[in-house]
């Protein structure tokens, strides 16, 4: 995969105030770091308060790579955004569990739709999006 800047921005979209990051199936160590930079950068630039990582295009992935993608959730939380992971299929879930991979305190959802619901603004005082 080319590591040219901007190659990855095509997989990051804004959906209803939430930054949606589609994890590419051919992610490697280098582009994973790039994806982290991009995702957090976009989150900051757009002033969004929510980030969703979508794994639905990924059939299988090395657990260390999955970990570095999961790290984006932690990073997003550090900058005060709500974040979650969605779209991990049955095959990948069982493979990761057999390797002892733990989601930790990362929120998970079945698909993007569920993920967006999970991240939806909790009822309360109105908040302003940037």
């Amino acid at each position, binding site marked *: 995969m080319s590591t040219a800047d901007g190659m990855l921005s095509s997989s990051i979209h804004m959906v209803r105030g939430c930054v949606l990051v589609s994890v590419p199936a051919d992610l490697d160590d280098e582009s994973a770091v790039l994806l982290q930079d991009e995702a957090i950068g976009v989150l900051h630039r757009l002033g969004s308060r929510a980030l969703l990582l979508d794994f639905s295009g990924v059939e299988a992935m090395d657990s260390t790579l999955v970990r570095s993608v999961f790290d984006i959730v932690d990073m997003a939380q550090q900058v005060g955004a709500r974040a979650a*992971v*969605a779209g*991990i*299929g*049955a*095959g*990948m*879930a*069982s493979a*990761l*569990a*057999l390797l*002892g*991979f*733990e*989601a930790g305190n990362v*929120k*998970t*959802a*079945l*698909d993007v739709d*569920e*993920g967006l619901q*999970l991240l939806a603004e909790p009822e309360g005082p109105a908040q302003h999006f940037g």
Partner: protein
Amino acid sequence: MVRPSVLQSAAGPGRDIMYGRMKMAKDDTVAGTQNPVSVLWDRILFLPIVGTVDSKRAQDIMDIMLAKAEETRARIIILDIKGVLAVDSAVANHIIKISLATRLMGCSTIISGITPAVAQTLVHLGADLGDVKSTGTVRDALASALGELGYEIRAKQDA
């Protein structure tokens, strides 16, 4: 050029392949009947585990649960282990593995049917179920699952 057909190869290695396929299909059926997953409520799956749980059975259960969870878009899975003959740390570990996998799909696991004897054994062995929620009865597990999904059970006013 002679194309190998199923009939021609029936006496050769092809037969083993066919037999292997049939055996695999049979194994799947057996795994499915031994581990009957039912939809207890919208987005709540229920699986009673009866008998022994070894690593093969645990793998079958995990595969079936994950496939069903994906198919029915389940949010919560209730595993009832009341019928498991011996619950030890190995079984506890299998259950934790299953819960880790379903968790990745946004689906949480509740273990029900922890009898006092099992609770005692697990504590004595120093085995714990980690973050997996556990209840004594299926009733409590269902109540907790419904609560998590935002349902409320109330008696009718005039009942």
